[in-house]
């Protein structure tokens, strides 16, 4: 089963839920897909034994074959290619702007002269490792790079479906989140009971409904703020999977990079219950689907 943990609003506790859930289960693979700001390693302190570049394919022009026809510029939807046509006195040239390139391959596929090949451009790094028996993978977008979805997709190539896969997703509701949660069997949405938490939860719910991924909500710092998140969930028939109160010792242990279940093992049962809850809802969603 693949369980992703997402939120809409940042800082609600995605990493806390993902890490502690993973530490409470057996036979787990953990993927940190918040590649812009990966934090799970701070808590899990995995032993890293593998490193690989995360890349996107960008075009490279074979000047000998290119006749500067401009087809590549025309087909590039991202304006990543400029072509200066050849003239009587001067050879033409092709300029590539790799930061705008999405790696779609249209230019190399459609070049009439076979003058474009794709070369890998590093945009980040993928590291693999282990925390006790837990498998660990995370990606890290290089500073100054704009496009995180390709790095996220490359982290997800490591998914081993014989394990319980836990995905820590980035905040927000746009492309990086979609890249991270796509293909999940269930998504846990973490929120807090404030107007900000509610506003962004509603957006995240709309995304998951559009993607047809079953989901439930964890309310973190459940005793601050107001009751509107719970009212919303009730009205929308969204299961509340777990509530975690605001406690200074939880905040402090988070700040030091210590998972709650390591400080207070009684939390293991609570996270095990969270898993049982998720499993039940996932099976329910499946049988619904089949019917």
């Amino acid at each position, binding site marked *: 089963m693949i369980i992703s943990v997402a939120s809409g609003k940042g800082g609600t506790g995605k990493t806390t839920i993902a890490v502690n859930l993973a530490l409470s289960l057996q036979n787990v693979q953990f993927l940190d897909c918040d590649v812009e700001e990966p934090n799970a390693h701070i808590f899990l302190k995995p032993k890293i034994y593998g490193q690989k570049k995360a890349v996107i394919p960008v075009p490279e022009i074979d000047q000998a074959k290119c006749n500067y026809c401009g087809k590549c510029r025309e087909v590039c939807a991202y304006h990543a290619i400029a072509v200066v046509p050849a003239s009587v006195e001067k050879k033409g040239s092709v300029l590539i702007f790799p930061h705008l390139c999405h790696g779609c391959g249209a230019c190399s596929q459609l070049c009439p002269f076979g003058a474009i090949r794709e070369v890998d451009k590093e945009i980040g790094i993928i590291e693999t490792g282990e925390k006790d028996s837990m498998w660990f993978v995370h990606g890290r977008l290089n500073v100054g790079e704009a496009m995180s979805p390709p790095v996220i997709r490359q982290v997800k190539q490591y998914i081993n479906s014989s394990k319980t896969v836990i995905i820590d997703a980035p905040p927000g509701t746009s492309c990086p989140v979609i890249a991270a949660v796509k293909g999940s069997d269930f998504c846990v949405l973490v929120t807090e009971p404030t107007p900000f938490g509610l506003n962004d939860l509603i957006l995240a719910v*709309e995304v998951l409904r559009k993607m047809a991924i079953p989901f439930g909500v964890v309310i973190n710092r459940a005793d601050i703020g107001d009751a509107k998140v719970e009212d919303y969930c009730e009205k929308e028939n969204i299961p509340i999977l777990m509530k975690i109160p605001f406690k200074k010792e939880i905040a402090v242990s988070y700040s030091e*990079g210590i998972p709650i279940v390591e400080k207070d093992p009684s939390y293991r049962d609570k996270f095990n219950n969270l898993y049982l809850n998720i499993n039940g809802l996932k099976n329910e969603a499946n049988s619904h689907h089949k019917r």
Partner: protein
Amino acid sequence: MKQIVIISGKGGTGKTVVTGSLAGLAKNKVMVDCDVDAADLHLLLHPDVRERHEFRSGQSAVIDKRLCKECGKCAPLCRFAAIRPDFTIEHFSCEGCGLCARICPHGAIRMDENVAGEWFISDTKYGPFVHAKLGIAEENSGKLVAKIRQVAKELAEREGLEYVIIDGPPGIGCPVIASLSGIDCALIVTEPTLSGLHDAARVIGVAGHFNIPVKLIVNKHDLNPAMTVRIEEFARRSRVTLIGKIAFSETVVKAVVEGKTVIDYPHSPASDELRSIWDKLK
């Protein structure tokens, strides 16, 4: 005119609370919410929408079932896995490159223009406010950020405003880079946690990469004083000026729940500290 953006790397450190407070403190400014896929600043500023515009950006593939022969040429070429086995397009995966439409031997795929969201110019009691809403599961948030920043800048120039104050998105990727371009000062809001420090360091690296001056504040600094000391050391080492530390307070939570800015509670320590931060920032 000075453009200031509030960013953090890590989400939930207090960007929007700080930005909302600056709305209450700065005179002669336009406010902007560039966290377009999870925008919250409107919950503090309570805008009256004056203008509403569609944000058209990019294209999305559509397969015409009557023309499609299910030859299967398109799917393996799609780098975004957006073509389902039943030859329909998964809209939220399509990045609009148009390769499938160009290579389809039966002309069965067309590219439709995408309405990826909306943007607004609004009135608030704090002055003009430019904000946006990215469509559900849409992309191109960086372009929407660039669009509303351009609108805000033009508005500031037209009305002779002194400041453009921008609530930025979390992370370090495309919308953050779009929020940073041409900025006079990036205010980084962090919190005294290992994650907060790790993420602030990365976003400061991004600002440095684009030669943007930065200033730093620590929110909820008393939640872990030892970690705050580490952040202060980090700031000294990396030559980043720390211009304020806001203590954890129930007032801040109360303000958010009531949809107010911290400045609406003038006798609280948090509002005093934010006032001093604004004095150092302007």
